[in-house]
């Protein structure tokens, strides 16, 4: 009988513009938005537009020339550059001795003081460029000194160090970025996708008194519960799948840095099937929890209020795993609900296809789904939770 309930709820949900908006449109827009931000801002080699830097008017003109040679900065001379920066007029200010060149020649080791806004990625990128330029100038000066002393630069660098990533490619940061985007986008999409339906199908039905008519029918309440739960889960799965399709499509078509990092050409089947399984079990668990929350609430508004903290709680494992390498994951990571989906996504993006991990995710999630469903069934058998305040 639950298929009748499921079929009706799906039709009802698809006719609800709010459900469609949250299950389809929002995941797509969210994925595109966050992807564009990551690719163009955080992973950009250089800032989009030059950064103004303030330098004291008394600065040695030779050093000012050096700074002007850095492409991504615009030099402005001011009497008190540090004050201007603190006032928020500049992201970077630089103080340079008026007799900097002379001090260098006399061996006094003069100082160039750079002050930068630590919260700005543009400032960070510009400071990196300035530091590279200054390091090069330091090396040139040292080379001249060494040459005068009949020595070569090798004296200062007796051996080389080669740094490579474990993945063998030079796309560590991009891969890391894709991982944190994918984890966030997929988990949020699954949770948000089922949210309107969950609050509508229990709290909403109580509020509109349709639940009363429903439980008056000779249908076992377990069937009603299962039909509604599967509706919420289906919408969560749909939303999750949409977000994955959008993410992969967007990365492949519209990004430069992340595209190279997300190479699925050899592993499309494993990646897709493992991620689909992960999304399905996660959606089944999330929908069971959303269903319980909705049963506790008496109105849709109340249900939405109760869900908000749960979404924040779901973010905790995300932040715990943000700096953990997929190679460090133990079985425990795949057995803890919510943490397991983040761990699985990370593993898959890093190209690690481990059947044990997937089985642990499915197994542990199934246990928690059954527990949540059991609680849901007990609650749904009590008029207090089914009919709300009026009972």
């Amino acid at each position, binding site marked *: *009988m639950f298929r*009748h*309930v499921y079929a*009706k709820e799906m*039709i*009802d949900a698809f*006719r*609800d513009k709010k459900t469609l908006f949250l299950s389809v449109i929002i995941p797509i827009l969210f994925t595109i938005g966050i992807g564009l931000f990551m690719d163009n801002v955080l992973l950009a080699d250089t800032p989009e537009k030059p950064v103004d830097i303030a330098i004291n008017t008394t600065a040695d003109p030779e050093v000012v020339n050096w700074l002007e040679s850095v492409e991504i900065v615009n030099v402005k001379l001011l009497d008190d550059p540090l004050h201007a920066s603190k006032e928020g007029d500049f992201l970077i200010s630089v103080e340079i001795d008026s007799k900097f060149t002379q001090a260098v020649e006399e061996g006094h080791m003069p100082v160039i003081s750079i002050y930068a806004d630590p919260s700005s990625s543009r400032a960070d990128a510009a400071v990196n460029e300035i530091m590279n330029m200054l390091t090069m100038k330091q090396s040139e000066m040292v080379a001249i000194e060494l040459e005068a002393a009949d020595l070569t630069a090798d004296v200062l660098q007796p051996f080389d160090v080669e740094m490579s990533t474990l993945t063998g490619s030079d796309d560590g940061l991009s891969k890391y970025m894709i991982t944190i985007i994918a984890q966030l986008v997929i988990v949020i999409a699954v949770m948000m996708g089922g949210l309107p339906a969950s609050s509508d199908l229990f709290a909403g039905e109580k509020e*509109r*008194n*349709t639940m*009363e*008519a*429903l*439980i*008056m*029918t*000779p*249908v*076992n309440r377990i069937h009603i519960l299962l039909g509604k739960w599967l509706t919420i889960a289906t919408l969560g799965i749909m939303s999750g799948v949409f977000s994955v399709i959008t993410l992969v499509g967007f990365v492949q078509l519209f990004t430069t840095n992340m595209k190279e990092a997300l190479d699925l050409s050899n592993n499309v089947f494993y990646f897709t099937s493992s991620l689909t399984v992960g999304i399905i079990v996660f959606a089944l668990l999330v929908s069971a929890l959303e269903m319980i929350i909705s049963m506790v609430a008496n109105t849709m508004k109340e249900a939405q209020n109760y869900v908000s903290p749960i979404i924040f709680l779901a973010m905790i494992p995300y932040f715990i795993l943000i700096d953990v390498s997929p190679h460090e994951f133990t079985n425990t990571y795949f057995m803890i609900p919510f943490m397991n989906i983040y761990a699985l996504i990370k593993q898959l993006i890093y190209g690690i296809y481990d059947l044990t991990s997937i089985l642990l995710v499915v197994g542990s999630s199934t246990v928690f789904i059954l527990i949540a469903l059991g609680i849901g069934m007990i609650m749904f058998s009590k*008029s207090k939770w089914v*009919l709300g305040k*009026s*009972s």
Partner: protein
Amino acid sequence: MIHVKDVTRRFKDKKETIEAVKSVSFHINKGEVVGLLGENGAGKTTLLRMISSILEPTEGTIEIDGQRIDQHGMDIKRKIGVLFGSETGLYDRLTARENLTYFARLYNINKQETKGRIEELAKRFGMTDYLDRKLQGFSKGMRQKVAIARTLIHDPDVILFDEPTTGLDITSANLFRELIHQLSQEGKTIIFSSHIMEEVQQLCESILMIHKGELVYEGLLEDLYKEEETDNLNYIFMSRLVRGKEHV
């Protein structure tokens, strides 16, 4: 047909226990139309919810057609149609036909029978023109007709109406009263709760009067008029409430 024996329903709040229905007993014969009278909060809805098996009594038993509700809940649900309020239990994003079809499915009525039943009810209530329109935007009267059709979709023997004319305009309320009259002629057993005395006088042979969860009168209206030597039901109702449970 309906036998209610010593039924009590208590609700536990955080601080106190509220007794919404207190040891109520009555019997209703097949084909009777019974008015359930009481003020707001008297326990009418709780009593109807228990008869319709939505709520379990804390104490006592309810039998319908010889079957106890707590033992044959599913069988009894097939025999009962319930309408709480005048237009509830409907899904706004579905059409009137989809609403009716959905409930027919839940009552396990096959497709062919459902189709025929919907056409019959649509004709009976004059809903044919808007049967395939979504309920969003329906007037109160239109919604009421769909809600009644939903209540009758499985052709129940027992029909419970809780304050069915509340909020309806005069035309819709009159149509509803006409319907109860028709259903009565078809041999349906009907309980409908109301606080409109004229409505009860017009439609019922018997009444149940409930006050603060206690039954203060059960019997024929005619007998009540004789006992009180007046047919002013408003007056009788008020005086019974004052006197309490002496006639039960």
